[in-house]
């Protein structure tokens, strides 16, 4: 599946009853939990405003904050690498792994590494890569990609996971969740013990201290970043916060918006490498700062706010489109409303031209976004950009030119309405796309303006 076949992907998803059942259950539950968690804080709106102001400041002075972050992180023993795009990031990470003679790599959940398709690159370099987040582990076993930003296996039912574990891990059939998770835990513990390199993402990078902050619930990130001798953290350049104290705002917003938790189970704060050679923990910390299209988004005053996203996934859960078709249909790494905004900017508008239209513009995403990204406005902006490219929607463009010509002339508007009425009476209106699922309200014999004229 890819972004260019969105319409077909979506139709297939709509016909998948199991998928829709799983989606409905999960997105409803996420929605309820998020609402309750947000309501538990009386200053939720203030926090959102504060978070957005902090992100706006970061994005406006990103150069300065990046320099501060790099110099602090390196002064504490981390090594920072700059990657212009996915290829460069993968090259750096593979080189680091190969140079250390690594064979086994453990990974914790990271959308940024999905974005650059790191696993394929590492496997190409001869590494054995294991995802250690339970959801990611499930989809890795299934040979799939994540269908949600924070719940990668949201599309799978308990039964599907049980069957997968039976075929892939050879356990006797069971639908006992406890037994399934303990099987995964057992298998993954062995992988952790033999891993040479641990690769993680980053939720927040603190410019003031050079700290990277990662939140999780399973403890696998803690292990990924502490057991192997080398830790590589992949971080989008927009992930910065100026001060450690800013976490007060973001650690309230992120878990509540994502899973509906007051706080995630684990928050790891990693500042450089270990202080003494005898301490536990990795010998090396490498931080990959990834651009991959972000500076392009940053340059434009309208699209800049896309970079404020903290990847909580709340907009997916409330989106009526995502709720029906799930994440895979988008054909992109980032699905849902924010995916429809980010993807065209990351992979090029011509390759993802369908995604900005995959929205009814209902605004539910904007309403829940913890950093108040105006997603509908960004979708409209992108639709405009798509139409600027003369190769797109030729017929539609002419239709809207004609539409404007009619709407600018009331006499022509009335004549068109009369013509449409005649056509309706004689042939019916050619509105297959509408009438395939809905009856059409007929054009009335007398328009309002005719009535107004007559009754005045």
């Amino acid at each position, binding site marked *: 599946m890819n972004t260019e076949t969105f*319409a077909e992907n*979506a*139709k297939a998803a*709509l016909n998948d009853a199991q998928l829709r059942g799983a989606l409905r259950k999960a997105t409803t539950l996420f929605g309820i939990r998020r609402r309750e968690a947000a309501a538990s804080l009386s200053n939720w709106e203030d926090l959102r405003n504060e978070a957005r102001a902090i992100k706006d400041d970061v994005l406006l002075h990103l150069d300065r904050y990046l320099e501060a972050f790099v110099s602090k992180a390196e002064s504490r023993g981390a090594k920072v690498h700059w990657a212009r795009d996915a290829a460069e990031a993968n090259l750096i990470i593979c080189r680091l792994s190969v140079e250390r003679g690594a064979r086994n790599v453990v990974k914790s959940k990271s959308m940024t590494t999905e974005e650059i398709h790191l696993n394929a690159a590492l496997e190409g370099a001869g590494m054995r890569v294991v995802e250690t987040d339970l959801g990611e582990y499930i989809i890795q076993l299934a040979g799939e990609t994540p269908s949600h930003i924070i719940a990668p296996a949201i599309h799978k039912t308990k039964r599907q996971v049980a069957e997968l574990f039976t075929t892939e891990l050879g356990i006797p059939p069971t639908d006992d969740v406890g037994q399934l998770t303990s099987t995964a835990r057992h298998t993954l513990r062995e992988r952790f013990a033999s891993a040479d390199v641990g690769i993680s993402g980053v939720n927040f990078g603190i410019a003031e201290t050079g700290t990277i902050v990662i939140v999780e619930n399973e403890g696998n990130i803690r292990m990924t970043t502490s057991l192997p001798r080398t830790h590589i953290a992949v971080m989008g350049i927009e992930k910065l916060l100026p001060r450690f104290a800013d976490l007060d705002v973001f650690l309230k917003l992120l878990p509540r918006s994502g899973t509906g938790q007051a706080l995630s189970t684990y928050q790891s704060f990693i500042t450089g490498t270990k202080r003494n050679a005898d301490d536990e923990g990795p010998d090396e910390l490498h931080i990959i700062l990834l651009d991959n299209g972000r500076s392009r988004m940053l340059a434009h005053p309208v699209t800049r706010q896309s970079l404020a996203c903290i990847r909580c996934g709340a907009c997916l859960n409330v989106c*009526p*489109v995502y*709720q*029906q*078709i799930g994440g895979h249909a988008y054909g992109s790494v980032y699905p849902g409303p924010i995916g429809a905004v980010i993807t065209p900017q990351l992979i090029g508008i011509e390759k993802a031209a369908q995604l*900005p*239209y*995959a*929205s*009814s*513009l*209902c*605004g*539910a995403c*904007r*309403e829940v976004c913890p950093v108040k990204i105006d997603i509908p*406005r960004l979708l*409209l902006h*992108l*639709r*405009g950009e*798509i*139409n600027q490219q003369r190769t797109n929607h030729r017929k*539609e*463009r002419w239709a*809207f*030119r004609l*539409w*404007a010509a*009619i*709407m*600018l002339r*009331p006499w022509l*508007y009335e004549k068109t*309405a009369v013509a*449409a009425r005649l056509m309706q009476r004689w042939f019916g209106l050619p*509105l297959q*796309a*509408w009438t*395939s*699922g*809905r*009856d*059409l*309200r*007929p*054009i*009335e014999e*007398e*328009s*309002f*303006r*005719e*009535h*107004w*004229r007559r009754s005045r």
Partner: protein
Amino acid sequence: MKVSLFVTCLVDQLWSSVGTSCVAVLRRAGCEVEFDERQTCCGQPAFNTGYRDEARLVAKRFIEIFAESKAQAIVSPSGSCTAMVHHFAELFGDEPEWRERAAAIAARTHELSSFLVRVLGVDDVGASWQGRLTWHDACHGLRDLNIKSEPRKLIGNVRGAELVEIENAEACCGFGGTFSVKYPEISVAILDQKIEAIERANVQAVVSGDASCLMQIGGRLSRKGSKVRVMHLAELLNHR
């Protein structure tokens, strides 16, 4: 108060009784209503499909026509089209003069229920209707114009009407303008959730502030042979 009716092209051509009801309700609330026959569309279809040049032309014409009106308020039986007028300024990034004119028009433009309740302070227009009904929060009215309590207050005062809330009343009906024909299958799948909730609520009518959403909901109810009817708020408020 003198008001100018912005009837919307959809109501004008497809659902004129919403327009006539709107006029009657405004008059009952003490307004003098004018209707400028030069008006056509606010430009929303082009704006929402990404045709900014076309939307800008149509918006400018709208602004010119309504700027001539001496009416204190421009009132529309649509949250969506009212919201579009409130978005006009976004179209004029490089034209500060038009941005100002757009803002002046937006400040005078109100959706019907919010005009009655917020501007006139009227929450009872003496309507009556017998039966159980529910209110569908149309997205743009709800999220762009913050209209939520106003229609409920008005409906609460309709004699004989019992207002019940459906599950996820705030969820989109799946219309979304061109979305409904670009991705009809997704649009109808979203719509079916709404229909399910309506059917569970055991109501006789679904009332909303936007003809577009009601055409979407009504079109599916009719296709499914449901007895539930759709009604615009203006029609309900004009029922006696």
